[in-house]
């Protein structure tokens, strides 16, 4: 696939590669620099695997100071930098460039402090999402955002993308759970913003940094809120003969005054694949399945599930099953969280991430199905229904370039549909390169200019994570070479 334009590398930087690598070794130490072909190849892409670029070099520092020294060097020498967590980005957010140094935070993965009285954890950001909860779990606490890739993805990546997860309906996304950061700016200076307290002072720089896709700085440490685990949690499975009925059920639950901790939605293709993978007891004879989870004591759970079951009965479900025990609950979630992986075993796919107002759900799902039919492609839907964050998985054969291109086109059409329905291009995966050229579908030039001025404030020369988020044309500074016209997937 190649319909997303990527700038040609700067030859003047490529020519200096050997000298740059030598300098990086001198700054960060030989053990921290990867410069050989095989080593670099492991970093040439992220989870948006259709695009690959061999990085100039990879540096894996072990301290904030080392990150600062490398960034300071790159800044002084006009070398671009691509920050990297675990490389699980689904939108090419961590895609390297041939003339850019990748700085990975994966070796900075320590828990620095846990305070269950003031309820925070201070960690290095190379820690995986799940490892934070694992570290505070024995004391009965957890870190709330839970993206599906939580076993692998780093907090650094979560901060860059403002990651969500299945349980953010109740607990919010990354930006609602980070209290403070230590960040290295592109010029190598280190800033600390926020802290252990619940509201950071002055202008809300945390809001700007979280979700800035690694374009404002490299966050090396963070103080995150930890929450006390609920006494228990249990999901129920509600199957419907149509997506329309399922979406009515979602609206009824929310309007009734209950906010479950999660409401997940799967359509038939997704159910089949996930059930085959997880053997979770998903019903196979329904068109749409809701996983609704509530929390509390045994009695509270029973009471709420019964209430929700009552609401669901009014809509006429085809099946309604309450998880029998913790083992089945675990399987139900395993099925949901491995949906992408399980579908990936069956076909290559592009995962879209638009969010829509819930009231538009039935219409949008029908249109998604029509769009994919038009391009002759299959689609599976598995997403967070409670907050309208869709994840249509467009299936195609990556070995067939024409199919691959059609998949990208179908994806772009779906995202335009989401915006037209009152929603947005991306709910939790980020813009990266994937949706960069669609930004004008959602934003006016003035909206984008306001965002780009913030980018320039933090990184005047646009060296950090270049060619992402904003369309290549219309940037405030001329790129190092004339920008290529952005080829939107039309």
């Amino acid at each position: 696939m190649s319909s997303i334009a990527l700038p040609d590398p700067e030859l003047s930087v490529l020519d200096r590669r050997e000298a740059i690598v030598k300098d990086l070794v001198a700054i960060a130490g030989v053990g921290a620099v990867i410069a050989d072909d095989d080593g670099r190849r492991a970093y040439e892409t992220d989870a948006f695997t259709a695009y690959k670029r061999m990085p100039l070099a990879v540096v894996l520092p072990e301290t904030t100071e080392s990150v600062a020294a490398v960034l300071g060097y790159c800044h002084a020498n006009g070398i671009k930098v691509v920050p990297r967590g675990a490389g699980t980005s689904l939108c090419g957010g961590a895609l390297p460039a041939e003339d850019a140094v990748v700085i990975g935070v994966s070796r900075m993965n320590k828990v620095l402090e846990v305070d269950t009285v003031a309820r925070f954890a201070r960690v290095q950001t190379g820690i995986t999402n799940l490892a934070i909860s694992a570290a505070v779990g024995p004391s009965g606490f957890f870190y709330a955002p839970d993206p599906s890739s939580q076993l692998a993805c780093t907090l650094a990546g979560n901060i860059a993308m403002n990651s969500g997860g299945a349980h953010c309906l109740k607990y919010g996304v990354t930006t609602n759970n980070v209290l403070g950061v230590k960040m290295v700016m592109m010029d190598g200076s280190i800033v600390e913003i926020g802290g252990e307290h619940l509201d950071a002072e002055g202008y809300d720089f945390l809001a700007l940094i979280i979700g800035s896709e690694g374009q404002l700085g490299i966050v090396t440490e963070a103080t995150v809120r930890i929450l006390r685990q609920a006494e228990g949690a249990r999901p129920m499975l509600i199957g419907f003969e149509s997506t329309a009925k399922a979406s009515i059920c979602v609206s009824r639950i929310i309007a009734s005054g209950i906010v479950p901790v999660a409401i997940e939605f799967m359509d038939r293709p997704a159910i089949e694949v996930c059930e085959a993978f997880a053997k979770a007891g998903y019903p196979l004879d329904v068109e749409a399945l809701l996983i609704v989870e509530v929390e509390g004591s045994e009695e509270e759970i029973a009471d709420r599930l019964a209430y929700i079951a009552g609401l669901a009965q009014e809509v006429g479900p085809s099946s309604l099953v309450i998880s029998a025990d913790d083992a089945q609950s675990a399987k139900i979630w395993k099925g949901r969280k491995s949906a992408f992986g399980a579908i990936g075993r069956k076909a290559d796919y592009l995962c879209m991430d638009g969010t829509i107002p819930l009231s538009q759900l039935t219409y949008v799902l029908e249109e998604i199905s029509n769009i994919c039919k038009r391009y002759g492609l299959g689609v599976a839907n598995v997403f967070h229904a409670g907050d309208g964050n869709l994840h249509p998985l467009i299936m195609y054969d990556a070995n067939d370039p024409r199919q691959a291109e059609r998949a990208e086109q179908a994806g772009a059409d779906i995202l335009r549909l989401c915006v037209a329905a009152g929603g947005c291009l991306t709910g939790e995966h980020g813009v990266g390169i994937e949706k960069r050229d669609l930004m004008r579908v959602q934003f006016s030039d003035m909206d984008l200019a306001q965002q780009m001025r913030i980018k320039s404030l933090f990184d005047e020369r646009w060296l950090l994570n270049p060619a992402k988020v904003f369309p290549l044309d219309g940037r405030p500074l001329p790129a190092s070479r004339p920008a290529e016209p952005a080829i939107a997937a039309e």
Partner: protein
Amino acid sequence: MSEILKPAADWELKSILAQLGEQNLPVEIVGAGTKRAIGHPVMAAAVITTASLRGISLYEPTELVMSARAGTPVSQVEAELASRGQMLPFEPLDYGPALASRPGLQTIGAVFATNNSGSRRITVGSARDHLIGVRGVNGRAEIFKSGGRVMKNVTGYDVARGLTGSWGTLAVLTEVTFKVAPLPDDVATIVYSGLPEDLAIELMSLAMGTPYEVSGTVHLTPAHAARIATPPLAGETTSLTALRVENFMKSVRYRKGRLIETLKAYGQPVELDLEASLGFWGEIRRMAFAPASDAILWRVSTSPRKAAELVATLRRHMPVEATYDWSGGLVWLEIPDCADAGAADIRRAVAIAGGHSTLIRAREAVRREVEVFQPQAPAIEKLSRGLKQAFDPRGLLNPGRMYQTM
């Protein structure tokens, strides 16, 4: 007397700001003006109020989302929400009574512009956490939007949230879109009397460490407690420590019982039913503990671990009455009127404890001299200056309100 401008549409505000910009005339930005006495006095020939930008433009109870124009009174927003059994989960404070203006006037735009969150912030998040979209006009007289009306949105930078807590110094918000939540079926409060501050914070932190989703934790020192008028707490002469649980009825009963049991070492609490609970937490929201007076009022945000020690340190220099919210992470300090409003001592103590402090109430002459908002570290000040430049390069909007030279 300043000229008062009342734009009724985005384009009208844009054209006013363009004209002011051409003449380099700074302007004060207000909603209803209930928090006008917070911050350095703004020196400007004109005032723009959002009062004519009024009305709820979108409300979808089944999506838990509302959009309102910035000048819509919070009272109107909450009445509309209540009619569908919903609420503003972060229960913004009403500074009116503490700052000698009437209660109930505050606008929804100002709630977000000042990131104003009440007691429930500790469980559900702040005003800023609930904001999902804005429209506004920046100091360049450009109309812009950020975010949208959906709950989850990471498209581009989070400019909407970035504007919360900027006190009208970066842009004038014209419309805000935010998440709302269902009203709980039932509310109960348990109140402990006579606990010293350190024990009270220990109790509140323990309560927050239970799985019972305590949604409010406050401690009032005796003089503050004495101002509470809700029966059966009226006339209390000792300190009060209150914990709130909210949910469906069965759950509230269960959780209240579990909390009392878990915390029995701290004594037998008084139990407030639904009505008394609404009364008490309503008083906290209206800051009944610190009604308008000459006394200085500070807002300190710190770690719950450090709060009691911080106040004890200050008492060596001055008499202090305090109300602790957010299980001790938010401290309202009331001290007698004095020349520097106690800034030197308070800032020194906060520097040691960590966190920040804002001067909420003091005479205008004092607010002219004292840094009202927490002074910034040099690296952050540089960023703040840059951000101001990015939104309002001519320095038209609320000049000096947050930082004297910005």
